[in-house]
């Protein structure tokens, strides 16, 4: 059992010594992370710092070269993606990846694939089992879309909706499987400050409404400072800061990476 003994909050997710290289390039090196239930963690870092690679390692897109990933006391490193998702992890993508030819509803309910409980012949002969399952999934999908205020656009093609709503569809799709851990890959990419403000509200609402623990990737301070309880700063695959968000400004390494050598010097 892995429990944080000091304040009895439950450790949900832990990454130990994660490393991964692409050829000669060390994209992630010795990455560690311990996430308690209910927290919002930010992974901050400039472009190319290896943030998305961390998510890809966690969700099984790549197999880690070294290190272990533990979710709810079980090792999940090396499992295929669908098996990892089935454990209760869900994610979104930096550049929205919806199923473009599908309707909004179909996009969301595709995420129920992992919970499938009818065999192929049941679909072929449209048995009661098929209808029961499909009706249930249809119900839960439209309920989630309702919460995101997308119920009236359910039958439109996902790709035809504006950018902000596509982000919401992606969130809804990720949340359908009732994950405990939600990984958001640059949810604010391509948004202006006003939209970022709304996004922050949305993410806080998602945590409350769906009771998920969140790890989010960002390369801008603004959103991270606003949302995250804890933050981890990466630079060229190395961790340069790890701790409470409030301590971020005091870290010389972070200031150096973000504002350059001069700024760090000027502070002294």
């Amino acid at each position, binding site marked *: 059992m892995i429990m944080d003994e000091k304040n009895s909050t439950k450790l949900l997710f832990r990454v130990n010594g994660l490393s991964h290289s692409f050829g000669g390039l060390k994209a992630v090196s010795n990455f560690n992370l311990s996430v308690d239930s209910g927290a919002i963690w930010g992974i901050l870092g400039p472009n190319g710092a290896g943030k998305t690679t961390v998510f890809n390692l966690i*969700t099984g*897109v790549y197999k880690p070269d070294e290190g272990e990933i533990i979710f709810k006391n079980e090792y999940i490193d090396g499992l*295929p*993606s*669908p098996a990892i*998702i*089935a454990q209760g992890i*869900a*994610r979104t*993508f930096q550049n929205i*990846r*919806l*199923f*473009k*030819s*599908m*309707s909004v509803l*179909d996009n969301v*309910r*595709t*995420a*129920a*694939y*992992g*919970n*499938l409980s*009818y065999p*192929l012949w049941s*679909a*072929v*002969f*449209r048995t009661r089992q*098929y209808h029961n*399952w*499909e009706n249930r*999934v*249809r119900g839960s999908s439209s309920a989630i879309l309702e919460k995101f205020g997308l119920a009236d656009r359910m*039958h439109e093609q996902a790709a035809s909706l504006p950018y902000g709503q596509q982000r919401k569809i992606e969130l809804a*799709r*990720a949340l359908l*499987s009732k994950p405990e851990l939600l990984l958001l890959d640059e949810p604010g990419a391509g948004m202006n400050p006003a939209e970022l403000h709304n996004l922050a509200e949305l993410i806080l609402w998602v945590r409350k409404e769906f009771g998920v623990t969140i790890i989010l990737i960002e390369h801008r301070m603004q959103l991270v400072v606003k949302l995250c309880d804890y933050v981890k700063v990466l630079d060229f695959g190395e961790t340069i800061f790890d701790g409470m968000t409030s301590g971020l400004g005091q870290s010389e390494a972070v200031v150096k990476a973000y504002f350059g050598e001069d700024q760090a010097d000027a502070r002294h």
Partner: protein
Amino acid sequence: MGLLLVAGFAAAFVCDTFNLADQYLAQIIMYIGINVILTVSLNLVNGYMGEFSVGHAAFMAVGAYAASFFSVSVFPQNPAFFPLSLFAGGICAAFLGFMIAVPAFRARDDYLAIITLALIMITKSVLENLPWFGGPQGYHGIQKYTNLSGVYLCTIASIMVIRNIVYSNFGRGIIAVRDDEVAANLVSVDTKQVKILAFVISSFFAGIAGGLFAHLIQFINPRTFSILKSTDILLMLYLGGSGTIIGSILGAAIWTVLIEALRFLGIWRFVFAPVALVMLMIYRPLGIMGGREWRLFIPKENDHGRKK
């Protein structure tokens, strides 16, 4: 709709029993039915799943040879056993589909095309060199068991099965693979399973079509199932418009009729028809249906009309 289907079967059955239909016309109609089965089943892989397989002729060949073998050598010479032989042919083709799908889907796109191209060549030369099936001389002694009602039933069944799969959880998985395979994997779709499934179902129906074909023309040889056969099926698929059932049906029907209707041109029809196809691709690159499905093929619970 159900009534119409029954009426269609009744008409086919009456034509069979009393020999009402003109021989030539009946032949064309049966060709259309067989081609519809081939096109609709290829559509599952090439249209809905967005892969590019050119191996359909090989599955058709295996279905044709296996069904013929069962009806000639295993079961008594009686049309009553024909459905069993057909089914056995379909199963053999599906098995081959499974054997190919496992290694083939480690590759994508061009590579899958090349692997399935190799499959056609291998199948053809294996059939040419196996002594039991007549080798290059072809398989003789097949009875004419294929009739209008048989083709009708098989065509309707394959359309219904594929339509029901497409509009189900499995179908959403298949389309998700086409739209974004990585994202599909990360929303719990087991893409490996989905691909194998689609490929196996597709080859099963190609096998059924092969069995019907063999028992219609009563003589098959390995050359019948060359790359040209696959090309024909691909043509019909893209002519009608891939990714819709109505497109596959129209494509198969129009191409079959066109090739027949242009018979008076002699060998020139094989120039005219491809030129027509080139024109179509220029002026309607998405095929005749252009990705739009006929309302009748969309299950009621999925049909939300085109309301804005």
